[in-house]
């Protein structure tokens, strides 16, 4: 008899706690809203908007959001590509990808063969249009990623991506090109990621193209959910990873993930 009674008391207490939490969070919400009201009225508007538009002509692009992303605050974007890559590498570190889904039937396959090229073309368009209208590398990369997801759903275990070696180059393309452009500009005396106005448009397009590829590949690879399957994944004898063959392994390799149904 005592156990259920104790359980009751436990649930009762957790209910009380939830109630308390609800009250506290409501207070927090109200307080935040008031603070937000005060902040809106602080008279900071137009904030950075006017300045951003004023400098727009010398950014190399006409779309102000792209100007912020790839020029004013390009450094943020560079690091954010690094964040995406870090997440993907973290996923890869957890183990090999689960096997894909079974091959799609004829109808789905036919649809995929239409949709995927369409997505890729749309992605390319998005990339180009980003220079002067809403669009850009992220939107384009997201479309490419979506294409990868569809391909994987249709049965390709690699989501349409190449083998591991090539995939790695695709994944690093964004940050690599971005960093090299930045350092190159610095080497020529312009300063890190300081584009000369005449070159800005083309440098940004170059970076965006690389970023689109990297984002698309990273999103698709993340959906695959592990190190890519394929011949590359198998260990090779001539590997140079560990400089010393050394004594006993520090930690045994992680057991492979259970294949999913």
């Amino acid at each position, binding site marked *: 008899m005592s156990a259920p009674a104790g359980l009751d008391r436990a649930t009762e207490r957790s209910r009380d706690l939830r109630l308390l939490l609800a009250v506290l969070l409501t207070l927090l919400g109200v*307080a*935040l809203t008031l*603070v*937000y009201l*005060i*902040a*809106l009225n*602080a008279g*900071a508007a*137009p*904030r*950075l908007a006017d*300045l*951003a538009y004023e*400098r727009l002509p010398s950014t190399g692009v006409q779309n102000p959001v792209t100007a912020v992303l790839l020029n*004013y*605050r*390009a*450094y*943020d974007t*560079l*690091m954010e590509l*690094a*964040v995406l*890559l*870090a*997440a993907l*590498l*973290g*996923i*890869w*570190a*957890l183990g090999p990808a689960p096997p894909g889904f079974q091959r799609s039937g004829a109808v789905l396959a036919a649809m995929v063969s239409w949709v995927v090229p369409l997505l890729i073309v749309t992605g390319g368009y998005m990339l180009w249009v980003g220079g002067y209208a809403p669009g850009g590398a992220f939107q384009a990369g997201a479309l490419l990623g979506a294409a990868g997801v569809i391909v994987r759903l249709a049965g390709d275990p690699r989501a349409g991506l190449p083998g591991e070696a090539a995939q*790695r*180059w695709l*994944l*690093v393309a964004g*940050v*690599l090109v971005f960093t*090299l452009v930045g350092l190159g500009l*610095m080497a020529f*005396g*312009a*300063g*890190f*990621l*300081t584009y000369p106005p005449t070159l800005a448009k083309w440098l940004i397009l170059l970076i965006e193209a690389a970023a689109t590829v990297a984002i698309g590949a990273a999103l698709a690879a993340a959906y695959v959910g592990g*190190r890519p399957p394929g011949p590359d994944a198998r260990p090779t004898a001539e*590997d*140079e*990873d*560990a*400089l010393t*063959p*050394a004594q006993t*392994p*520090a*930690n045994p*390799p*992680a057991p492979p993930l259970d294949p999913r149904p």
Partner: protein
Amino acid sequence: MSDAALTHPLVLCIALPLLGAMLVTALPRWSVRLGILAAVATAAAAVALAATVWQQGTLHLMLGGWDRQLAIALRADGIATALVLMANLVALGISVYASGYFHDRVRVRSFWPLWLLLWAGLNGLFLAGDLFNLYVMLELLGIAAAALGALTGNRDAVAANLRYLLVGLLGSISYLLGVALLYTAYGTLDLGLLAAGIADSPQLLAVNAAAMTLMVAGLALKAALFPLHFWLPPAHANAPAPVSAALSALVVKAVFYLILRLWLDLFWPITGMAAAMLPALLGAVAIVWGSWRALRAERLKLLAAYSTVAQIGYLFLFLPLLAATPPGPARDDLLAALLLMAVTHGFAKAGFFLAAGLVQTNAGHDRIDDLGGTAQRLPATTFAIALSGSALIGLPPSGSFIGKWLLMQSAIATGQWWWVIVVTTGSLLASAYVFRVLSRAFGLEPTPMRFITDARAEVPALTLALVSVAVLGLASGPVWTLLGLSAAGVGA
């Protein structure tokens, strides 16, 4: 453009590890060699940065050459430079150690890119002068750290690091809301401009206080300030040794650095005595509680992880003392002491974890009660534990001894004597847990024939530990110089 050339190390500290991360990702077969190359290059950039700041004072760079409001600023002042230097030297030591630590091919390939990305995030965080950029850096750190922490792939590690990731995300979102409020009220993200804005707008007290609360609370979660420390011990204790070292010595420290920045630079008009008391009280509890748990820990790495909880507590004790000390030599001393504690702990804790990892590898486990033979077999490693342990306790001659000396001095001088009791209690408990480990090294095991058995692993650990004791404890004057404080006026 000699002025521009001066700021190059500022960029290189971030760009080089980033570039290195890309190369090791793309060329996994060369991971170790490229990784070490990138590590050495990055550390060299950090040394160059320190040398430049030493000569020229604070460095500023508006990326993209835009107006201050629009651009993202990088800046290296004394505090940032001291921490960058510490972090990069420690990271170099960790890299050398790691080059021999992982033997499994998959681990090697996973470790190096994530490690270099983490490194880039660390330097980026120390050098950022923009609130939103700091958010991105926090996320880069959080994601890379959680991924690295889960590298062993065992259940405990995955569970602990999943929790770490989620908690970290919550912390960053809270921080980001604070940033959004500040942008709403002041229309800029630049730290310097915001600081000026906040100082000029006492009428926006509610906004300032709310933003500060959101940001500091979110960061306190990531810095594992008691009682928000629950995620740290399992995450740090279950990671591979070089990762534990980086997480405990550097990542947590970086987040604390950001808190300090916000506290001192941005929100100084509202971070008076009243505001400082709460974090300091939590810090005091962290010291006692963390040390106590470290004393009770069964495993060496868990002990080290709890010790980090305690050591973070010490840093928060400085806040009310800073609030109570008017600008002048006494406050400068206090600031330098704070920095010295943080830097010393960085070196010491990294050395401790690396040595602990070696003990674990050799013994096949890290249960403290059964360590006897292993500790005695590896004199250099035991020495590293002893040296870093005495820095954790705050015994002379270590950097933290000077730190604690100045901390207690200030506590007595400002009449806040109760912190002295906290510090002494913490030191006693720390002695107890450190010597609980060291006493295992004095058994009836056979005599080791050599001082060093595995140089690539033992030398980094021993060097880091030695720096925390001999270098920082006997020649901490440069910390004052780097902070731009005049050593002449310093006295009682």
